[in-house]
């Protein structure tokens, strides 16, 4: 491994961080400059993250691009000797696609935020901080830093939603952005408390005096300990993954957040939860995972069906997508809980696929909202006439969501289903039925909002005067959404390269599980 590769992950984490620091010192009124530098940094990061995935050698497996820097020497302990908290970076087959996902969503998110005119400088500072944290979580092999980056990615959300967000105001149903931000924050902090408790418990129980994940995974924790700690881990990370019944922050948060933040939030941040369950829960506490898997599976099934049905009853475009995220994350949880190669690979691929798909959804809905200042399904009708690109891309995202073959959602869900049928055929059937319900709400939405006759009067009243000539997405938004759509197509048609890498990581985790059982 050459020097560049061993520094690659650090570079990927640091680019947004340094970018954020640089933005702070940029003059406020030079918006163009800030937007351009954000775009360029985003592009570089995306390219690097894709390189990172492509260069991952799936034959060797294991943690690659690994490198470590000692951050803090813990007080020396006579029994275990001198140990340190290290910034230990490395990716395996599960985190590699997640890194790529983050890179893609970051770049497209920056493109989609170019239209932000309210304090763009501060927006990009916080946004880059958030992204840096997300990269950090996926790349960290040290529980301490995993938690550190996790918090780093959670905290900026509050400001991003609270300041740049948008409120829902139907006469009968009001959710302010402050409410959404606060709720999201409280939930995620509650989750992180559980995570921190369990991380410290694992640290103490191991007796190694280290937070290193590979070292900790060698240890067989005793069964009682695993049985007690796994639910804490699963719940703590599960909150972030939208685990029922702790999911309500997610639709409210998605709806309140500005476009780019919704994208990162639904696209990547929720994946942190699922990733944490795999990395910390399953990898370190295999027996606990084994014992609690049925519960996780049951909750995942509830997520799928419940999320889909809830989405059916929503009026706000973003709420529909918010609940569809809850539903789709259910597939991830189900896939994780199958504890077999196919299901788990499906879960990881679903994380990737759903990330891209939701990001696409939110770009498109963001465009609609910016142009019309409404997301009310009851009001919007036939807007495909004015917004051709938006309609096409929304339909692509919708079809992905309902699992149309040829798009990424199908492959992922199929693998989850096959995995489920190995162990729990009935739940597998419920999962497939959930996909059927998804078809209902997506197609209803598409038929109502995009198709049908456009009422010109309503439209002229609704549309922002800035956009009355050209209501369709601008070039940046088009590039952003087309990048996402192409990713969906590529993964849907040629999933093999992705699955190969994911499979490596999944196999190792399951081997570790089998070894310790």
């Amino acid at each position, binding site marked *: 491994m050459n020097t560049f590769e061993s520094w690659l992950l650090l570079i990927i984490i640091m680019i947004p961080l340094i970018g954020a620091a640089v933005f702070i010192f940029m003059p406020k009124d030079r918006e163009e400059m800030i937007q351009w530098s954000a775009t360029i940094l985003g592009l570089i990061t995306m390219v690097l993250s894709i390189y990172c995935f492509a260069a991952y050698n799936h034959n060797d497996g294991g943690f690659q691009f690994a490198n470590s820097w000692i951050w803090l020497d813990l007080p020396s302990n006579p029994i275990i000797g001198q140990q340190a908290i290290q910034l230990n970076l490395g990716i395996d087959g599960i985190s590699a696609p997640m890194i790529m996902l983050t890179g893609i969503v970051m770049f497209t998110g920056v493109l989609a935020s170019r239209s932000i005119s309210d304090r763009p400088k501060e927006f990009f500072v916080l946004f880059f901080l958030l992204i840096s944290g997300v990269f950090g979580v996926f790349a960290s092999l040290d529980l301490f830093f995993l938690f550190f980056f996790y918090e780093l990615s959670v905290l900026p959300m509050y400001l991003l939603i609270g300041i740049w967000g948008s409120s829902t105001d139907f006469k009968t149903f009001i959710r302010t952005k402050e409410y959404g931000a606060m709720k999201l924050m409280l939930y995620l902090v509650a989750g992180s408390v559980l995570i921190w408790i369990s991380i410290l418990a694992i640290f103490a129980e191991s007796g190694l005096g280290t937070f290193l994940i590979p070292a900790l995974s060698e240890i067989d924790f005793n069964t009682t300990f695993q049985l007690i700690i796994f639910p804490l881990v699963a719940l703590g990370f599960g909150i972030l993954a939208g685990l029922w019944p702790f999911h309500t922050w997610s639709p409210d948060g998605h709806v309140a957040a500005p476009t780019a933040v919704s994208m990162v939030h639904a696209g990547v941040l929720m994946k942190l939860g699922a990733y944490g369950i795999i990395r910390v829960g399953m990898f370190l506490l295999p027996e606990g995972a084994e014992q609690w898997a049925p519960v996780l599976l049951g909750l995942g099934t509830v997520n799928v069906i419940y999320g889909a049905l809830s*989405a*059916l009853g929503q009026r706000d475009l973003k709420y529909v997508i918010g609940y569809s995220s809850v539903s789709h994350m259910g597939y991830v949880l189900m896939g994780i809980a199958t504890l077999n190669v196919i299901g788990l690979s499906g879960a990881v691929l679903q994380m990737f696929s759903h990330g891209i798909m939701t990001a696409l959804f939110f770009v498109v809905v963001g465009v609609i909202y910016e142009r019309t200042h409404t997301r009310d399904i009851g009001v919007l009708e036939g807007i495909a006439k004015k917004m051709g690109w938006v309609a096409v891309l929304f339909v692509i995202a919708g079809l992905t969501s309902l699992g149309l*073959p040829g798009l990424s959602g199908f492959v992922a869900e199929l693998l989850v289903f096959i995995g489920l*049928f190995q162990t729990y055929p009935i739940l597998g059937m419920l999962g*497939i039925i959930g996909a059927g319900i998804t078809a209902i709400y997506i197609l209803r939405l598409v038929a109502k909002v995009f*198709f*049908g006759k456009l009422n010109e009067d309503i439209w002229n009243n609704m549309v922002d005067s800035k956009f009355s000539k050209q209501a369709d997405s601008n070039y940046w938004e088009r590039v952003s959404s087309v990048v996402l759509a192409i990713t969906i197509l590529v993964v849907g048609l040629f999933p093999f390269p992705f*699955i190969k890498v994911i499979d490596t990581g999944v196999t190792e985790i399951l081997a570790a599980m089998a070894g310790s059982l």
Partner: protein
Amino acid sequence: MESNNTLGLHAAWIIPSISAVAFLIIVVSMRIAGYFYSDRTKLALLAPIVSITAILAGFILFWLVLLDVLNFGGGSISMNWLVVGLTEIRWGIFVDKVSVAMLGLVTFISLLVQVYSIGYMKGDKHFEWYFAIHALFAAAMLTLILADNLLFLYFAWELVGLGSYLLIGFWWEKRSAAEAAKKAFITTRIGDVCLLIGIILLFKATGTFNISTIFHIAESGGISDAILNSSILLIFIGAMGKSAQFPFHVWLPDAMEGPTPVSALIHAATMVAAGVYLVARMMPIFELAPEIMLIVMIIGLITFIFAGSMALVMSDIKRVLAYSTISHLGLMMLCLGTGGVAAAIFHLIVHGIAKALLFLGAGSVMHSIDNETNIWKMGGLRHRMPITAITFFIGAASLAGLPPLAGFFSKDELLLSILHDGQYVVLAITLLGVFLSALYMARVAIVPFLGSTPKHLEQSHESSSIMWVPLVILAILSAGIGFLILPLSSTYPGWAEFIDPSHHFELEPWLMILSIILALAALIFGWSVYLRKSVSAKQIIEFAPSFYKTILNKYYIDDLYQWIIDKCVLAFGNLVALFDRVVINDKAVDGSAISVYMSALKTRVLQTGYLFTYGAAMMLGACGLAILWWILLD
């Protein structure tokens, strides 16, 4: 199954690929051209040229495949698509006599329909897009036919559904078209969900998606009865959805909101036949489950009669044809239920050609009379558009079962197959259905084309040649293809034996004569009711007015579904959403926040703001800590 000669097989996988590439080319070039030329009409012909070239190439390659199948008996090739753990999921194609027959049908009809569409869709806003979806649909449908494993088949199956969705909703600015597209997708989706479950169940039992391997395992008893029966039933439900069998038939009549050539291609000849094709394809495994075969037969029978009765009362020409399609698909299913694969496929082909002809004819009529679809507002069009009229008559007569047209032979084969299965009651009911189908065909042919011409149709005229040439080709085929059933030469032992060597060509004269009599009787009856009016239709209606009303309202099934969707599914969705909002969110989540707030209201009284309180509390606390420390220390 590996074939030595793979030339034909390679040709086979190229066929759908060309169309897929054509789809991409059209979509991309549309966008790029849009940036350079503001005047789209100059480029409009680009799209049909690309897509028609693609499908023409497919049609030419079809002959190569056919030759290969005739000489070497087909085979399969496949490649890896996915490897997960130890499980391989492959993409592959499989060519045999049935699939090659379907291949010919689909490429041929697609070709004609696309040519026809150039004339029909001229001047439409989204002209290029229309041909793009056509190419996409053709690619998907051809893939479906060729797929050698169930997953790949499902893959194509869904894409076919997508093509249908896009084409039905092609005029999406019409609310009804948008709704119809949605309805079609969702209804078939219900079937698809079952199909996927069935496929995965089979995968679980056998560890493979490959159809022939599944057959081997199933035949050697490697699958338990429960799994086998349930998965076959689920697969059949999938087929029912696509083939619009009762009770999933509701989407097909609504799908007529799409452009008429689309109805001809997708909703008559190809996509709806996919269900029948699937069942035929899976026949070896269906035969292992006689109970399911019985269900297939009964569903087919119900659909046949039931849709036929509705076809008899509809006044929209396309809807009549749609119900007739459903009815004929039911007939094919019925036949498959008795094990008659060859007969069903033969009827599929004959019906596909004839129905495409009828739809294109109907389209031609609509095109010339300003998109009027109500048959009662037409009449005497025979004089205005003779070619359309004659070809339409040929198609109708073929489907009505008049000798020596193709429909006569195929229907005869079907009846024979039912007879051989020993289902006499079914046979009797089927004969009633044959009468019905001849009657509605007479109605839909006689009312618009014969009789006197109403005033407002004086201006109507024959369509352009690009539209009537396909009609003529189809009419010729529709008339002549029936003879394929006969053992024409020493090497060709007749259709049935060609498809399935265990069958032999035979005739049952009394059945043949009976069906001819029934068809003729229906035609005469129709002629006297609708043309000579010697028998009043009104009197017949008054015979059982409520029954008539029920049929006219499609047996209230659409209303029932609407009710279920509105009152059950949506209401349930709303209920869950409300539950989420009220119970989970407001009570549990905000409730916990509120309870914290309320307890804070109680405890905040401690914050008196007086120095005294804080000082005393602090000091007492320090004392308490001191005492604690003391106690702990000793």
